[in-house]
C-alpha cells in the first residue's frame, strides 16, 4: 500500500445555489421568462430539463410558475449538477464554472441567462 488515505466527507462538490429569497428576483427577469414569446420555448425546454434532473419530483409546470430560488423550490445539489451537464450537452453553454453564478439563483434568471447565450 503506498497510498495515503482519502477521507471522510467529500460528496458532490457543487452546491445548490445558496439562498436567494423570492423578493430579490428582479421583476424584469420574471417578465422575460413569462412573456417573451421567443423565450417561452426555451423556458419550457429548461423546465423539462430541470424536472428530469429532479427525477420528476418537480413538474415542468411548477418550475415554469416559479420565481423563487431554485434551492427553495427543491432543486438539490445533485439535480443542479445534472442540469449543468444537460445544458452543456444540448446548448453548449457552460453554467457555473465556479466563482459565483447568480443566474442559478432562480428559474427566471436562468432563462434570461440562457436566452442571451442561445440563438
Amino acid at each position: 500500500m503506498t497510498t495515503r488515505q482519502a477521507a471522510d466527507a467529500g460528496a458532490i462538490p457543487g452546491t445548490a445555489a445558496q439562498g436567494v429569497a423570492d423578493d430579490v428576483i428582479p421583476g424584469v427577469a420574471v417578465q422575460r421568462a413569462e412573456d417573451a414569446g421567443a423565450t417561452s420555448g426555451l423556458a419550457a425546454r429548461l423546465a423539462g430539463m430541470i424536472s428530469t434532473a429532479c427525477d420528476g419530483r418537480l413538474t415542468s409546470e411548477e418550475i415554469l410558475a416559479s420565481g423563487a430560488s431554485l434551492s427553495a423550490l427543491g432543486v438539490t445539489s445533485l439535480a443542479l449538477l445534472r442540469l449543468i451537464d444537460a445544458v452543456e450537452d444540448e446548448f453548449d453553454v457552460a453554467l457555473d464554472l465556479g466563482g459565483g453564478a447568480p443566474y442559478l439563483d432562480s428559474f427566471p434568471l436562468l432563462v434570461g441567462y440562457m436566452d442571451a447565450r442561445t440563438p
Partner: protein
Amino acid sequence: MTSPAVPVPGTVPEMLRLRAAQEPERTAVIVEGNGAMTFGEWERRSDALAHGLLDRGVRPGDRVGLLFGSWDWIDFSVAYCAAQKAGAVAVPLSDRLAPAEVRHMLAHCSASAVLYGRDLRPPAGEHWSAAPADLEGGAAGAVEVRVGPGDLAQILYTSGTTGLPKGVAASHANLVFGCETRPNRRRFGHSRHLLHAFPIGTNAGQTMLMNALDARPAMLTLGRFTPGRFARLIESYGPGTVFVVPAMAIEFLNAGLHERHDMSSVLLLGSAASALPPSVSARLAAAFPNATVTNYYTSTEAAPAQTIMIFDPARPGALGRPAFGGSLRVAGPGGDPLPAGETGEVWLRSPAVPRSYYRDERAGAEAFRGGWVRMGDLGYLDADGYLHLVDREGDVVKSGAFKVSTLQVEAALYEHADVAEAAVVGLPHPVLGTTLAAAVVPRSAGISGGDLRAFLTERLAGHELPERVLVVDALPRNQSGKVIKRELRRLFDPAATGQTEGT
C-alpha cells in the same frame, strides 16, 4: 541500495520547503480553467502572505479562517501554508457552508482573522478579513517563527451527534504522518496527475492537499464537479490516479460517460467518504478497465487511521483491514474487542498523534477513548479480519458522503417563527445513499416547503437542505412523546396521502 538521506519534515511548512527546494519548477496544483502553481511559487507566495499575516498582528496559536471555493484551490493552498508558517492554526471553510454556519465556526474557535477567496465574503464578527493578494505585497523570504510537530496545525468542522458542528483539531505531527519525501518513493508514482473533486474544508480535501505536497503527481481539480466535466478532464489529462466519492461514481456511471470518453489512463480509482456499494465497485471496475478500484474508510476524527480495501468480488462488501500501522477494533459495550462475526461499534486507532475535539471536552470524552476513535458506525470483522459495516438508524446520516446531523437541521427549522414542531429523517436515495426529509407542524396555516427551504438556505449548507418537506397536523410520537422516526419515514412513502408536500 539505499536512498540518499532526506530530512523527514516535522511540519506542513517543512514539507513545502523541502519540495520547493527539490523541484521548484514542478507543477503542484492545477485548477481547470483557473490556472496552475509550481512548488516554487507556492513557497514564495506563502512566505509573502505569512509576512502579511504577521504584520497584521497574527501570532502563534491564533486561528485563521480560510474561506475558499473549489475554483480557488490555488489561493487556498497558499493561504493554508501561510497561516501555518506564521504559527497559526488553519481553519479551512467551504463555500458550501451557509453564513450562519461560518459564523458559528469562526466564533467557536475565536478566529482572529479570515482569509477569503474570489467572489466570497466572510460574515462579520470579532475577526478582521482580507484577500490573500491584499497581504502578499510586503516582505519576501522565510518568516522567523518556530513551528514544531506538536503545534496545532488545522481545525476542520464536521457534523456531530449533538447538532452543532464539532471542530476536529490536528497537530502538524498528525498531518505529516507517513509523508514520503524520497524522490524515488513518492506516492502515486504511476501518475503525472491526480484528479479529485473534494471540497475545501473536508478531510478528504485536506488529504488531497497533503498529497499535493509530497506525492509525485500534480493535484488536478475543477471549480465545480459535474460528471461530464470530470470525464472530459480524465480524457484530456490522462490522470493515473482519480479520487471520487460513491455518489459521484454512481452519477458518472449512470450518465454512461465512460462509454463516450477514454478512461484507460486511470490505474488507481480511489473512493472515500462512504462505502462503495459492491454493485458500484463492479461497474467501476468495468468502466475503468485498467484501474484498481480501492475503498478508503476513515473519518475526520480518526485520520490518518484508516482501512483500505482493493475491491475483491469474493468479499464485495468488505472495507478492508487497517493500513499504515493503525489499528481496528469492533468493540462491545465495555469497549472490549469482540470476536469475529459479532456486531459492535467500530473503533480505529491512529498510528500518529491522534486528533481531538477543539474546545469540547464532553464530546471529546465520548468520541476519543485512550487513543481509539469511536467511528459512530456498527460493524463486524470476518474470519480474516476484514471490516464489514452494518446499517443502522442514527441522528447523523451520510448524504452524498457528507455527514449531516438531522438534529442540526431540526434545530434550524425550529428557528422559524411559524414552526411549532419539526422532525427530520434520512430516506434511502439511489445516488446519494440518503436524502433528507422534514416533517413540520406549523403554528398557523399557509407555510410552504418552499418558504421553509428559503429560510434554511441562510442557516444550512446545500447538502443539509431537506429535499422533501411535508407540512403535517401532528408528528407520530410514542407514549413518552418521542418522535417515532420509523413512522415518520412512512409519511414520505408515495402511497401516503393527505399531506401537503411543499414546493
